[in-house]
Every structure is written in structure tokens, then in C-alpha cells.
């Protein structure tokens, strides 16, 4: 086990900022420690002199690696890490892996090459499958690296013992690599590969370590170079300035303040504003279940968009039931299929449209493919009816892209017909915001989709980066439609939530609470900052901020007005300002 020597040639220069995907919000500044690259197999590895003996060595080494991984599993205190190590140990002992390696040895392949090729055969299938299975390829390759090192008589890959806190940088970290780290000396983790749901990211999240994954060029950093890892920004800054270093120390303290606020979302004077999670898959829902008060937006597209055939009603019901179960006792808001010409269904022919964002999408699918809409409602109804009576009202179902009270009425009737108790619609078309009271008369609740509401209000395509200033949810026109919808909810006493991007901006969360919005739904990772923001002000203070934002002439001054109304400490914590 060795760290690689510093290699200044080709290493990124001071001040360079490498970008990846951040996990969590933490920041850290420490020198780089590189995890040694895995052993390569020599191209000319000779065949075993005696094939039977070669087979015995290969089988013996795989068994040893399995034992070693099991011993590491038993020695770790982290339950998830233990489970991952046990899974890797099982792979090392897999009969099909040993059989394939043995076959290759008998065919004249060198022993280390045989293990390498046998592992790659399985890993290629996993990688091609994508998703969770692709992540398992990392486990499998960690078995390969250890077995190949033993067969070649070279050191196993890993990291030298750390004597001071360091930023661990690797291609990818397997659970076995992570288990070998002295975590008290790990300041942050940066990987060139991996994804936000990889083992590395999961474990780093649990340990509260700042982590940035998929950082191209990370492994070209020289060992010992100080780097500033900012998980919230998803960046790695090389040899940062002294000023940046001070900022990090303050940010780390502030992040601890944010994380220390727990419990339900509420203003300082106890006015509840439930904080919910936006999720796309049952796995997301399980991951977000701790720390949120429910699901404010379950996007069901994922069940449909990749499917070659329409998912059977029973399969849909099972997927909805899984999310509902993960949140037993809490609210789950399910949005029906939001597909259209811009997000085409593989199994249904839809006409090409000149203007897909303005075409047959969302609930409008009922005009061209009514069966898909009615079968989804049937599946949702079955999931609701399977619940005990007292839990049926926890499942809220809403339709996207509603423009008229008549559409809301038709959807509500169809949903109630199949036994859905709480029926709502999205407000993302300006027409729906303008007629919010008439729409609320037809349904039990509405939820504002602020991204689409901004796109349609400002007539600016969400996908056009150069129009980002028009799409700003702080635009006065967008804010007034949000305010009008919230006011309609207050008048008729029905919930008006927000499930768009804007809910996750802590300053906007204060404005929304002040406008009378009843719940905020966002990516689970954004909840702590919103909770901290709400807890710092009373409802009356939020109302004043909302009034100030609404009175502002443009987006920048609306945001500045809210910023000016905050206590200096709160502003620093929320905005990372010095």
C-alpha cells in the first residue's frame, strides 16, 4: 500500500477548479492523498506449468480474498459498509466466477489474466445493465484487484496510513477500500468515476464527509496538493487562496448549524410548513424517507419512459405501493404521467409536434391516449384501496398540465371513481393560476410547479440556457401568479403546495411561507437549509418579506429585498457569504 508520488507534470495548476457531482453540502480543505491504481495484468503472463495446480491457486486465492473481505466486514462498525463488504465476499466465493477462471486456466491463460477476464465477463454484463447493477461492478472489480495482486505477488491497492487529515482521491472507491481507510483522518472524498448513488457517496453521506464524484482529472492531482472540496457546489479547487481557506473554516461551522436544526418544517413561532421530498423511483423514496415529512412529488414517468411496453396495472400498483409503504403514516403526493412529444413513450405512437411544450403533454394525453391515463388511475386506485381506511387519505394524487376548471373536474371525477380520496392538480399553466379559485372548487388541493409556471408565464424555453434570467422564479410576474394561487388557497381553506425548484431556494422558501403556501417539496438534500431558514423567522416576518419581494420591480431586486430583511448571521449561513 503506497500513495503515488507527486507528479507535477500534467497536474492541474493552482486556482484550477475541477467540477463534478457533489454529495451533501459539506466543505473541507486538506492535502490530496491518492489511492494507488489497481494492479495491471502483464500482457505476457505465462500459462500455469500445471493446469490443475494453476486452477487450485486461482480457487485458493479467490477463497482467501473472500475470507479477507468477510474479516473486514466483521471489523467495521458501519452497517451499510458491512453489508457491502459481505456482498463483495460472496462474489469472491462465487462458484460461477471460480469455474470460469478455472476454465480459462485449463485453456492456457495465465492465472492472473484468467481471474481478470472472468471478472470482466460478469462486470461487463453488470455495467451494460446500468443502475444498481452497474454499481455492483465496482464490488466485483475490488475482488479482481485483490485476487490479481495476490496472484502476481504485488501489494494490494489502497492507501498508505494517513497521519494527518487528507482528501482521499481515487478512480473509484470500493467498500473494501473504504473499510481500509482511517475515517478519522479523511477530510473529504473525491472520485473520478462513480455516481451520486455509488457506495462511496452513500458512505460519505452517512459519515457527513464532503464528497464530490465524477470529477474528470481528479486522479491527475499531485499527492500533497491542498484542495478545497465544496460538496454543495460540486467543485474541487486546487491550491486555493488564503481567503478561500478562511471561507471554508466558516462554512464548515455554518453547515454544522444547519444540520443541528431537526424536526418538522415550521417558522420560528411554530407555524407549520411541512418539508417534503421530490422523488423519481421507489429507491429514491427509501433514501429520502429519513429527514422529510413525506413525498411532495413522486414523478411516475420513470415507470413509463424507459418501458418497451406499457407497464401492467399490477406492476404499476406494486411500484406505487412501495413508495407509499416507505412513508407509512406520512403524506405521499403522486403525480400522474407527465409525458408528451418532448418526453415520448416508447410504446405509444405520438404525433411529432412543432411546439412540444405547448402540445399534447401531461394530462392532455387523455385526448390521444385515454387508456394510458385511465389504467394509471386504476393502478393508483388499487394501491389506495389496499390500504387500511385510516391511511387512504395519506395518498394524494394530482394531474400535471391542467389549464381549465373543466379539466380539473374531469380528472377529479375519474380519480374519485377508482377510490382515490385526495385529488389535486398541478398549477403550472398561467391559466390555472389565474383561475386558481375555480380550480380549487373542483379538487382537494393544488401544487405549484414553478419551473413550468415560469416557462409558460415568461414564454421562455426551459432548455434555453441564454434565457435563464427570464426563467428566474423571482421574476415579479411569476411571483404574482404564485401569490394569486396561494391567496386562493387561503380563501377557500385548501392546501397549496410548491414542488418546483424554487422551493429549494431557502430565501424563496421564506417568501412562499409568507404568501400562505402550505408545504414545500424539494430534493431531499435541500431540506436542511430550507428548515433552517424557516426556523429563523416568524410567520409575520415571512409575510413582510413576501410583500417586499412582490413590490420589487425585477427579479434581482426581489431577491435582494428578501436578503436585506434577514439577520446577518442567518444570511451568512444560508448563502455562504463572508
Amino acid at each position: 500500500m503506497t500513495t503515488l508520488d507527486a507528479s507535477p507534470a500534467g497536474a492541474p495548476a493552482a486556482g484550477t477548479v475541477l467540477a463534478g457531482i457533489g454529495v451533501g453540502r459539506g466543505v473541507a480543505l486538506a492535502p490530496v492523498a491518492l489511492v494507488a491504481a489497481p494492479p495491471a495484468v502483464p500482457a505476457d503472463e505465462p500459462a500455469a506449468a500445471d493446469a490443475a495446480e494453476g486452477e487450485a491457486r486461482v480457487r485458493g486465492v479467490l477463497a482467501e480474498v473472500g475470507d479477507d473481505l468477510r474479516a473486514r466486514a466483521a471489523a467495521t462498525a458501519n452497517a451499510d459498509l458491512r453489508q457491502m463488504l459481505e456482498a463483495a465476499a460472496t462474489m469472491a466465493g462465487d462458484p460461477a466466477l471460480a469455474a470460469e477462471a478455472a476454465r480459462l486456466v485449463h485453456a492456457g491463460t495465465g492465472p492472473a489474466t484468467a481471474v481478470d477476464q472472468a471478472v470482466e465477463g460478469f462486470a461487463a454484463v453488470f455495467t451494460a445493465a446500468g443502475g444498481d447493477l452497474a454499481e455492483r461492478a465496482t464490488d466485483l472489480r475490488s475482488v479482481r484487484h485483490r485476487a490479481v495482486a495476490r496472484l502476481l505477488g504485488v501489494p494490494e491497492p489502497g492507501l498508505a496510513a494517513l497521519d494527518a487529515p487528507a482528501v482521499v482521491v481515487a478512480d473509484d472507491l470500493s467498500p473494501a477500500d473504504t473499510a481500509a481507510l482511517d475515517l478519522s483522518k479523511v477530510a473529504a472524498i473525491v472520485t473520478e468515476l462513480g455516481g451520486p448513488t455509488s457506495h462511496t457517496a452513500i458512505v460519505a453521506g452517512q459519515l457527513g464527509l464532503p464528497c464530490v464524484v465524477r470529477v474528470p482529472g481528479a486522479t491527475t492531482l499531485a499527492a500533497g496538493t491542498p484542495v478545497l472540496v465544496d460538496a454543495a457546489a460540486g467543485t474541487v479547487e486546487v491550491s486555493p487562496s488564503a481567503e478561500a481557506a478562511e471561507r471554508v473554516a466558516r462554512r464548515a461551522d455554518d453547515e454544522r448549524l444547519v444540520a443541528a436544526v431537526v424536526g418538522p418544517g415550521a417558522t420560528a413561532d411554530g407555524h407549520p410548513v411541512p418539508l417534503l421530498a421530490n422523488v423519481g423511483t421507489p429507491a429514491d423514496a427509501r433514501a429520502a424517507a429519513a429527514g422529510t415529512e413525506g413525498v411532495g412529488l413522486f414523478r411516475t414517468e420513470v415507470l413509463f419512459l424507459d418501458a418497451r411496453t406499457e407497464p401492467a396495472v399490477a406492476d404499476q400498483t406494486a411500484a406505487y405501493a412501495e413508495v407509499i409503504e416507505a412513508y407509512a403514516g406520512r403524506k405521499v403526493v403522486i403525480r400522474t404521467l407527465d409525458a408528451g412529444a418532448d418526453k415520448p413513450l416508447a410504446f405509444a405512437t405520438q404525433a411529432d409536434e412543432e411546439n412540444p411544450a405547448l402540445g399534447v403533454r401531461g394530462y392532455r394525453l387523455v385526448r390521444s391516449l385515454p387508456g394510458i391515463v385511465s389504467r394509471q388511475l386504476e393502478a393508483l386506485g388499487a394501491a389506495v384501496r389496499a390500504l387500511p381506511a385510516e391511511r387512504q387519505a395519506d395518498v394524494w394524487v394530482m394531474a400535471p398540465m391542467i389549464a381549465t376548471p373543466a379539466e380539473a373536474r374531469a380528472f377529479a371525477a375519474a380519480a374519485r371513481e377508482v377510490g382515490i380520496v385526495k385529488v389535486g392538480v398541478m398549477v403550472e399553466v398561467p391559466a390555472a393560476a389565474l383561475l386558481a379559485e375555480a380550480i380549487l372548487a373542483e379538487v382537494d388541493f393544488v401544487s405549484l410547479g414553478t419551473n413550468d409556471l415560469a416557462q409558460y408565464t415568461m414564454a421562455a424555453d426551459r432548455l434555453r440556457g441564454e434565457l435563464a434570467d427570464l426563467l428566474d422564479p423571482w421574476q415579479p410576474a411569476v411571483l404574482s401568479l404564485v401569490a394569486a394561487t396561494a391567496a386562493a388557497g387561503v380563501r377557500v381553506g385548501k392546501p397549496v403546495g410548491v414542488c418546483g425548484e424554487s422551493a429549494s431556494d431557502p430565501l424563496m422558501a421564506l417568501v412562499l411561507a409568507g404568501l400562505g403556501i402550505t408545504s414545500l417539496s424539494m430534493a431531499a438534500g435541500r431540506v436542511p437549509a430550507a428548515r433552517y431558514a424557516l426556523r429563523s423567522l416568524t410567520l409575520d416576518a415571512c409575510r413582510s418579506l413576501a410583500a417586499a419581494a412582490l413590490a420589487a420591480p425585477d427579479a434581482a431586486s426581489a431577491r435582494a429585498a428578501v436578503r436585506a430583511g434577514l439577520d446577518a448571521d442567518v444570511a451568512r449561513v444560508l448563502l455562504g457569504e463572508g
Partner: protein
Amino acid sequence: MPRRRARVATATGLHARPASLVTRKAAEGGHPVLIGREGEPGVDASSILSVMGLRLQHGDQVELSSASDDAEALLDELAALLESDLDLVEQA
């Protein structure tokens, strides 16, 4: 040669953890067992790598077979396991 058919009942499909429950049972059974989609050649049912590689989804119809005539009871147990929702089974 005993054979059984089963329909995968685990809602999330036979991913790592549910697959390990099946392969462990097969490994402890003491008889060679093949598992595969109907009409396709089977793979070693005691191999987690092979079984995960099948990417079995909820509702998939699978066939179990064994070259051992004494494997009838084992195949029954494996079929029953496949037909239960293994996400609800606690890891032993």
C-alpha cells in the same frame, strides 16, 4: 429431471439482496440447480453473479431445473422463495 416454474414476486426485481437469498438457499441445498428465463438456457442458481446477471424483474416467468432426481424438495423451496416478495424478508 425435475423442473419447476415460478413468477418473480419481488416488486423491485431480483437485485443483489433478494438474489442472495435465492443463491444461498440453492448453495445450501446440495444439488446442482439451473435457473433461467423460460425457453433460455439456465445458469448456476448458487451463483450470485450469474443470477444477478439475469436481471430478473417483477413478474418474469422463470424455470428451475436440476440434474438430480433428489432435488424435488429443493426446487419447491426455491420456487416458493421466488414467488414471495423478498424485499419484505429480513436478512438473516
